C-alpha cells in the first residue's frame, strides 16, 4: 500500500464513520490540533466529527533532508470524534485494519502519554499507540482547550503518516516511501527539506520575525475586539509559527521562549473565550 493509497484508505474509513473530510488549513501549523477544525470546533456544545490530512511545519526538526527520520515538514492524519463514543477505541483499531494492519499478528499497545500544548493552553490524557514498539498514533481525550474545560469530551487521533507508511511499506527511510507508483516521498520533498532547513536555521530574519510576531499579536487583539474569532485565530497561528522560527534560529533563551509561549497562550485564550461566547449565542461562525 503506497502513501497515497494509505491516505485514501483512512479517508474512506473515517468517511464511513460519519466524519466530515476536511482539507489542510491554509497557514503554517505545528500540529493538526491547531487547525481550527480541531481547536475551535472542539470547544462548545456542538457535536463534530472530522478527519483530514494536515501538513505540519516544525522548523526545529529539519535536517536538510539528510536524516531519514527528521523533517521540518511532514504529514499528520487527524481525526476528531466529539463527543467520543463509547466504542471509540474499537473504531480506531478498525481504522488500522482498514490500512492493512492485522491486529492479531502485531503487538498493539496503548502507552500512557499525556498531551499538553502550552501555546494553546490545551491538555488532555491519552496514549501513544505502539505497533510492535513503533509509535503510530497520538491518542488524546481533550480536557482543556484555550484554558477552558471542554464541554463534550472529544477524542483526538493523530496518525504520524510517515511512520505509519514506513511501517506498512517496510522502509527504513521516509525518503524511500513509495508515494505513488514510481514516485517516492523523497522525490517529492527532499529538495524542499534542504532548502527550508537552510531558511529555518540560517536565513529566517530574526528581527523581522519578532516584529511580525508583535504585529500579528496586535492584529489578533483588534480582531478580538471586533468580535471576529476566526480571523483572530489565524493571527494566533501566525504568532505560533513566528515563535517556532525564532526558536529554530536559536534566537530565544529558555526564559525568553517561555515569555513568547505565554503571549501566544494569552491570545489563544482570548480567541477561545470569544468563540465560546458566540457559540453560546448560537451564531458561531465557521
Amino acid at each position, binding site marked *: 500500500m503506497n502513501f497515497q493509497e494509505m491516505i485514501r484508505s483512512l479517508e474512506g474509513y473515517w468517511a464511513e464513520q460519519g466524519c466530515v473530510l476536511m482539507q489542510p488549513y491554509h497557514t503554517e501549523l505545528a500540529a493538526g490540533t491547531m487547525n481550527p477544525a480541531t481547536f475551535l470546533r472542539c470547544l462548545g456544545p456542538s457535536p463534530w466529527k472530522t478527519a483530514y490530512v494536515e501538513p505540519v511545519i516544525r522548523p526545529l526538526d529539519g*535536517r536538510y533532508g*539528510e*536524516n*531519514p*527520520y*527528521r523533517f521540518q515538514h511532514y504529514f499528520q492524519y487527524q481525526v476528531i470524534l466529539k*463527543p*467520543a463514543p*463509547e466504542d471509540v*477505541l474499537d473504531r480506531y*483499531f478498525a481504522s488500522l485494519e482498514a490500512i492493512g494492519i492485522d*491486529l*492479531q*499478528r*502485531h*503487538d*498493539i*499497545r*496503548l*502507552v*500512557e502519554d*499525556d498531551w499538553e500544548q502550552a501555546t494553546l493552553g490545551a491538555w*488532555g*490524557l491519552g*496514549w501513544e499507540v505502539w*505497533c*510492535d*514498539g*513503533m509509535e503510530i498514533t497520538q491518542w488524546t*481525550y481533550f*480536557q482543556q482547550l484555550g484554558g477552558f474545560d471542554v464541554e*463534550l*469530551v472529544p477524542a483526538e487521533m493523530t496518525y504520524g503518516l510517515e511512520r505509519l507508511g514506513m*511501517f506498512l511499506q517496510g522502509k*527504513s527511510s521516509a525518503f524511500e516511501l513509495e508515494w505513488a507508483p514510481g514516485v517516492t516521498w523523497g522525490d517529492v520533498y527532499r529538495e524542499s527539506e534542504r532548502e527550508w532547513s537552510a531558511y529555518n536555521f540560517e536565513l529566517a530574519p530574526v528581527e523581522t520575525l519578532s516584529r511580525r510576531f508583535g504585529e500579528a499579536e496586535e492584529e489578533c487583539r483588534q480582531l478580538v475586539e471586533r468580535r471576529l474569532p476566526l480571523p483572530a485565530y489565524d493571527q494566533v497561528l501566525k504568532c505560533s509559527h513566528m515563535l517556532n522560527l525564532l526558536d529554530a534560529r*536559536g534566537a530565544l*533563551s*529558555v*526564559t*525568553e521562549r517561555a515569555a513568547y509561549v505565554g503571549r501566544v497562550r494569552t491570545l489563544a485564550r482570548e480567541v477561545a473565550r470569544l468563540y465560546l461566547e458566540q457559540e453560546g449565542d448560537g451564531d458561531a461562525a465557521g
Partner: protein
Amino acid sequence: MATLLVEIGCEELPARACREAEAQLPMLVERELGARPDRVFVGPRRIAAVLLDVAERTPDEWVKGPPEQLAEKAAAGFAKRHGVEVEALVAREGFLGFERPGRPLAEALPEKADAIVRGFAFSKSMRWDDSGLRFSRPVRWTLVKLDGETVVGASSFGHRFAEGAVEIPVAGEYEERLRSARVEPDAEERRRQIVSGLDAIGGWSDPAGVLEEVVYLVESVTVLEGRFDERFLQLPERVVVTAMQSHQRYFPLGGNRFAFVANGGDPDTVRAGNEGVLAGRLDDASFTFERDVASGIERLAERLGGITFFAGAGSFADKSERLRDLVAKLGGGEASLEAARLAKADQASELVREFPDLEGHIGAEYARLAGYPEAVCAAVDEQYLPDSAGGPLPQTEAGKVLAAADKLDTLSVSFSLGHRPTGSRDPYGSRRAAIGLCRLALEGGLVIPRELMPEDVREFVEERLEGLVDVPVEYVRAARASAAPDLASVGRLAQTLYAERETASFGGVYTAYERADRLAGRAADEAAEQLDHSLLREDAERALAEGLAAVSVDGDVRKALESGAKLAPLVERFFDEVLVMDEDPAVRANRLRLLLDVRDTLGRLGDFSQIPR
C-alpha cells in the same frame, strides 16, 4: 456465605494509576463492604477484587438523626429524607434515629460497586462523558458477581485483540476464566513471568527501572529477544541504553542484544518490528553523534558563546569562564581547569538535544574521542553529581571540584536574578544544588570556602546543613554563626560542639558568652568602637582584658574551648566587681566594648545563644 467479584473494566490505565488503584482498592472495598478483599487484581484494563466469604445480607444499621432536644424542629425532615415515619424514630444515647434492617447483599451491591468506582483518587484523572465520573482513563464496564448471580454488568473481557467477551460463570472462577482468555490478572504473577522470561534469556539489566512499568503495560506476558546492528555499538553506551529503556522500555542484554515484553502478536513479526524501531532510533542517534564528532569537542566549545545559559546570566561561554575561576578558587588542579573549559561544550551538541538527561556524559565521551586525559573526561562526566539527594558523589578529585563549581555558579547566578525557590517551585534546582554542595563538603571532603558564596546563597546552602549533619539543629545554627572558613568545618564544628556539650570547657565558654551577650548585646549601639586600655580602671576589668588577649579560638575546637573557658571565672569576677553602667559615658562605652569583644571572640566558635541550656 458467598464469593463476591467486583471488576472495573477500563481503557488502558497508566502504570502509576494501576499502583494507586492497588493501594486504594482494599480500603474502598472495606469501606463499602465491611471486609478487605482476599484477592486484588490490577492490570492495564481492569481493577478487580474478590472476597471469598461475604455475608449474603448487609448488617442491620443504626441511622443516627438529630439530637433528641431538636426533635420538634428536625425530626420530620430527617424521617422524610430517609423515607420512614416520624413515629418510627426512637431515641438512643440522646439522639433520634432508626434501625435500618439489613437487606440482601445483591440488592445493595450496585450502589456499593458504584461507590467503589467513584471512591478512587488518582493523581491525574479525566472525564470522558457527561456522567460526572472522573477516573484515570475511561471506565467501560463493571462486572459484579455474587457466586453465580450476575448483579451488575454482563461479562468480562479477555485479551483486547485475541479474545472478546468472557463469561464468568461464578465469582470464584474469575482468575482461571481470564487466564483462558489470555489475560493474567495478577500483577505479581505477571512480574514473576517477566522476570523468569528475562532470567531464561540471561544477562539482563534494568538501570532505569522500567520493570515496574512493564508489569502494568501488558495483560499477557511474552518475553522476546532482539538484536541491533553492531555498528551502533560505536555510540556511547548510555545513549544506547537510554534509547532502549526510556523510549522503548526494553531491557539491555549487553552488546547488541536486548529483551522486551510483548502483549501478544506473532513473535517473529513483533520482534522484527521492534528491532526496526530500535534501529531507527539508533540510526537517528548515530546520525547526530557523527555530526557532533565531525565537529569535535573544541569546535562545540567554541559555539558556546551563542547559547544562552539563562536569561540575564550570559552565555554558556560566560558560564565556562566563571567555572574556571571558581575551580581555581576551590584549589582545583590542571585537570579540573581543563574540564571546566570543556564542561559545557556538549550543550552545543545535537546529541544532548536528543538525550538531555545525558548532558555531561556525552561531553565526556566527546572529550575521550578527542584524546583528553581520563581525569579531564571523568570530571566532565561527573559535573552534575550528585544529581539527587542520595545520589552518588563524583569519584575523582577534579570531578568533585568541577561539580562544586557548577553548583556554586548556578546558585549564585539564579539568586542574583531573583530566582530563589518558593514553596514547591524550584525551577533551577537550587535545593538539589545546595544539598549537593553540602554533601561534596561533608562526605566528599572538599574544602568549599564560605566566602565563595554571596550571603543569601550561603544562608540557603547552610540551611541544608541542618538536615545533613546528624546533631540537633541548634548546634548547626550555632556553628553557622562561627568563623569556620568552609562548609565542612561548619559541619564538624556543629558535631564537636554537640559532642562537647557536657564538658566543663563547653560550659565555661557557654556561660561567658551568654553573660557577656546578655548584658552588652542589647546595648551594642552604645559600645565604644575599640577597646581603650587606658580607660580600664578596675583590676577585674584589666584581668578580663588580659585574659581575652590570651584566648585563642582558632584551630582545634577542643583546645579552643579549653582556652575560651578560661574566661568564665574572669567574666564572673568582672560582673561581681565592676559596674558596667558607669556614670562616665566613656568608661561605660569601653566596658560594653570589652564584653562585646569577649562575646565576639568566643562567637568565632559559634553563636551559643542558639543552644538552649
